[in-house]
């Protein structure tokens, strides 16, 4: 945007950089926003329910569905044998059957599907199945899998230098094991799809999905047809967080297959319990480390071994675990490194994408290590953190050999340390703890550096479609999906800026595989980076045609045509935007264009894990203070201060919402959200009654969120903004480290605190006991 346009932008509604409300806000608040379950139901709609495996690992000797078939209201039943095409909904490797073909590999795996006239009839009929299982040995956690050599994908390694001898020679050494739980996405709107048969055997599918293109490809293959025969649409999701990246394919394929089989529209909505049992979550990890460091706490060499529970299939586990390897440095230069990453196959639900995509787990690991180094040396953890930060112009190359060129860590930490009053508060907390035997307080400042781009380079592409109608109104479409993050609003702001029109002239339309093909999932925080640029390209194409037309029509130079504030200046005169559009149409100018974008600069070699996987990094930091009750393990977050970098924000209100929501979600992951499986592989925390996401009363009493001011992205992203979807989640690490600080005080800052994640009150109590007595009391 040039300076003149910018000055005028104030007069336009919805300019880029302004805090316009979410484009659907008026619909959200009035109840008119149409989610998939709200779409007017077509005539003859059938409702589906899924029969799930009750065993973690078993061969199916017999599947007797006779009682199911004859139950009231049942219209059709489907098993793996009825699938005409490919029985697969795996996104990368074809190892994820839609319906289990004779072998089940997790409790909750789909075995058969019932179509009935009502939801209740379908769900009741499912229970009448008689399944004869021949149980097989089940591997349930990463350690069992490691012992058995059970993996979904090969183990990967990153090495730099000679970590072994660097650690051996270092003045100080530490080693340990960290355990880190998973997390359910808990989107408020559960998984859902509605499929409608169309003429000639085609399908139209409404799917609540971050990846309509993938749903289209997989559903087409499942019914034995081609992608051209299936259209997938998604206007909005009621939350997704990664849980609707690969998982909706299962739901949509089931609905599509049943629509194909019955010739009737079919809807599948999972209820909350089934959703939590049947669909994948954030990977839980067991992490071993050994680190060597100097007398000031600077890391000289480090070795990590990561073992994650991937579940029964590969799903997205390859890229997720790669990202763990890329982010186990977080903000720190690691010296000589060895990182080993095991992708463990277990007989549990296949784990999947969740905001941060493996990054948070890597960052969790290094934050615990750096914290322990400081505690071992009796230094303030912030000093040791800063001492290990990537340098500017030195110590600035990551373990995967990408140079950190846009380092804002020092700047952000300098500011936040002051504004949060960190040093004074450390002092007063120490005093408080010395005088309080039962209540203990803790504080921590943790940084975030998060790499932006899909690590699979080919996914960093996007398309858009823009039409202008003769009345000057605009139809906007792109390959991104809206899950509440405000992507549609931001992209519309970009188009409004390019065309210099009010945002309400632009109709934002549903993601639709027939408008923009082969779009990548809306994921990796890349939504506005990619789709904003693609839409900009489309708008600029049309604008160029309009300029050429105007110059010719009004006999002026092209340089004399300028779009400003709903008008077009042509030489000395000005005409309304819509007037120009009408003239251009009349003169047979094309008013429709596609736009395409691919992220520049990135390239990396997966075989060596080196290169430039990320276009740039997003930065932030948080200071959190907690208080724990050492008798009960209960605690509160007293205060959180956040400073986060959004580049030049496209919409500060939306970005702020991402920061606040991301932080709280990260805190939930590390504190209250506990996934618990029993020894039969059954998930016992499968509803909000037992699985606790943060509520309104859990958030910090004092919560100060600030965006780093006017730091344009160094890279040429859309208007120099930065991605903001995932990075703030990891600000939640500060709460976990603050809890460790409080626990460390229990024995007067003696032995290293041992706290597992999630730090439920039970876990805190265990850690307190360990701190006090050297053992966990039962």
């Amino acid at each position, binding site marked *: 945007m040039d300076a003149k346009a910018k000055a005028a932008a104030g007069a336009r509604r919805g300019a880029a950089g302004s805090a316009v409300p*979410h484009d659907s*806000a008026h619909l959200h608040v*009035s109840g008119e926003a149409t989610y998939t379950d709200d779409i007017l139901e077509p005539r003859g709609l059938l409702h589906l329910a899924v029969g799930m495996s009750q065993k973690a690992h078993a061969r199916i000797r017999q599947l007797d569905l006779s009682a199911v078939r004859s139950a009231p209201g049942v219209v059709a039943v489907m098993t793996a044998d009825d699938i005409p095409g490919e029985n697969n909904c795996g996104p990368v490797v074809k190892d994820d059957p839609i319906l289990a073909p004779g072998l089940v590999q997790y409790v909750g795996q789909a075995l058969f599907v019932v179509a009935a006239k009502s939801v209740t009839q379908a769900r009741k009929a499912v229970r009448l199945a008689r399944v004869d299982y021949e149980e097989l040995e089940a591997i349930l956690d990463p350690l069992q899998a490691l012992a058995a050599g059970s993996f979904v994908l090969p183990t990967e390694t990153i090495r730099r230098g000679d970590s072994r001898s660097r650690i051996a020679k270092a003045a100080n050494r530490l080693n340990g094991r960290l355990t880190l739980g998973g997390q359910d996405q808990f*989107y408020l709107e559960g998984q859902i799809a509605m499929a409608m048969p169309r003429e000639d055997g085609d399908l139209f599918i409404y799917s609540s999905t971050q990846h309509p293109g993938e749903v289209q490809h997989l559903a087409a293959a499942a019914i034995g047809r081609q992608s051209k025969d299936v259209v997938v649409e998604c206007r909005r999701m009621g939350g*997704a967080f990664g849980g609707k990246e690969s998982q909706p394919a299962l739901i949509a394929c089931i609905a599509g297959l049943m629509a194909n089989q019955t010739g009737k529209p079919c809807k599948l909505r999972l209820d*909350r*319990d089934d959703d939590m049992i049947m669909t994948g979550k954030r990977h839980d990890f067991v992490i071993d480390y050994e680190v060597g460091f100097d007398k000031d706490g600077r890391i000289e060499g480090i070795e990590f071994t990561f073992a994650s529970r991937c579940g029964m299939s590969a799903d997205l586990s390859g890229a997720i675990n790669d990202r763990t390897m890329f982010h186990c440095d977080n903000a720190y230069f690691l010296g000589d490194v060895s990182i080993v990453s095991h992708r463990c196959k277990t007989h549990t639900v296949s784990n999947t994408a969740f905001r941060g995509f493996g990054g948070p787990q890597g960052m969790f690991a290094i934050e615990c290590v750096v914290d322990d180094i400081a505690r071992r040396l009796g230094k303030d953890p912030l000093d040791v953190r800063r001492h290990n930060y990537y340098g500017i112009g030195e110590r600035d190359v990551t373990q995967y050999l990408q140079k950190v060129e846009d380092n804002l860590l020092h700047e952000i930490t300098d500011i936040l340390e002051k504004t949060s009053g960190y040093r004074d508060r450390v002092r007063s907390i120490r005093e408080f703890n010395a005088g309080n035997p039962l209540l203990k307080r803790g504080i921590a400042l943790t940084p975030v550096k998060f790499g932006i781009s899909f690590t699979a380079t080919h996914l960093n592409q996007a398309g858009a479609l823009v039409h202008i109608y003769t009345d000057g109104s605009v139809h906007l479409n792109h390959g991104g999906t809206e899950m509440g993050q405000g992507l549609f609003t931001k992209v519309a702001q970009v188009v409004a800026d390019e065309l210099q029109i009010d945002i309400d002239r632009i109709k934002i339309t549903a993601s639709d595989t027939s408008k923009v093909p082969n779009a990548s999932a809306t994921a990796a925080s890349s939504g506005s980076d990619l789709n904003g640029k693609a839409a900009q390209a489309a708008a600029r194409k049309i604008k160029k045609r309009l300029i050429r037309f105007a110059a010719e029509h009004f006999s002026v130079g092209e340089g004399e045509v300028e779009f400003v504030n709903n008008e077009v200046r042509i030489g000395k005169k000005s005409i309304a935007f819509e007037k120009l559009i009408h003239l251009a149409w009349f003169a047979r100018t094309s008013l429709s264009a596609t736009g395409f974008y691919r992220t520049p600069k990135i390239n990396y070699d997966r075989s060596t894990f080196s290169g430039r996987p990320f276009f740039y990094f997003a930065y932030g930091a948080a200071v959190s203070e907690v208080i724990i009750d050492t008798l009960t393990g209960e605690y509160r977050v007293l205060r959180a201060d956040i400073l986060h970098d959004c580049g030049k924000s496209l919409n500060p209100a939306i970005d702020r919402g991402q920061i606040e*929501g991301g932080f709280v979600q990260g805190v939930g992951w590390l504190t209250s959200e506990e996934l618990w499986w029993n020894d039969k592989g059954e998930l016992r925390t499968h509803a909000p009654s037992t699985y606790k996401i943060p*509520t309104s009363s859990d958030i910090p009493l004092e*919560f100060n969120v600030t965006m780093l001011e006017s730091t344009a992205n160094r890279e040429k992203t859309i208007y120099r903004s930065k991605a903001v979807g995932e990075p703030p989640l990891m600000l939640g690490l500060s709460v976990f480290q603050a809890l460790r600080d409080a626990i460390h005080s229990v024995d007067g800052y003696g032995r290293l605190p041992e706290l597992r994640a999630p730090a439920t009150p039970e876990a805190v109590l265990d850690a307190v006991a360990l701190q006090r007595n050297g053992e966990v009391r039962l």
Partner: protein
Amino acid sequence: MKSQISLQLNGDKVSAEVESRTLLVELIRQRLGKTGTHIGCDTSQCGACVVHMNGRSVKSCTLLAVQAQGADIVTIEGIAENGELHPMQQAFREHHGLQCGFCTPGMIMSALDLLKLHPDPDDREIREWLEGNLCRCTGYQNIVRSIKAGARAMRR
């Protein structure tokens, strides 16, 4: 067993034949076509389905439709007046009290009930009141902000 019930929905008299097990939320969404009331958990935990029954907030997934016999039910679609958003709806929109919007109708209906008891609630009262309404997107900050702004506008 089926029974005939009649009730007021957003001011209109409606009647329907329902199974004895039909939930109020099913009646509202499927039979009466008001889909602004959402189902988030099916088990009375999340608050996405909150409506007003005789002036107080209830979770409509926890009530049977027959329990609403003769009741005055108001859903999110029923609070706007003369085509103008209610001040609380306005506040959620302007103060960004939503992201995906799925929790929003329930949040607004709960908030309006709180304001009947406390027309001028402070942060703590709002947070405690909303414990039965889950939001996975916003971190609640803007929801609290919106409710305070909405309350201010309503007092005017």
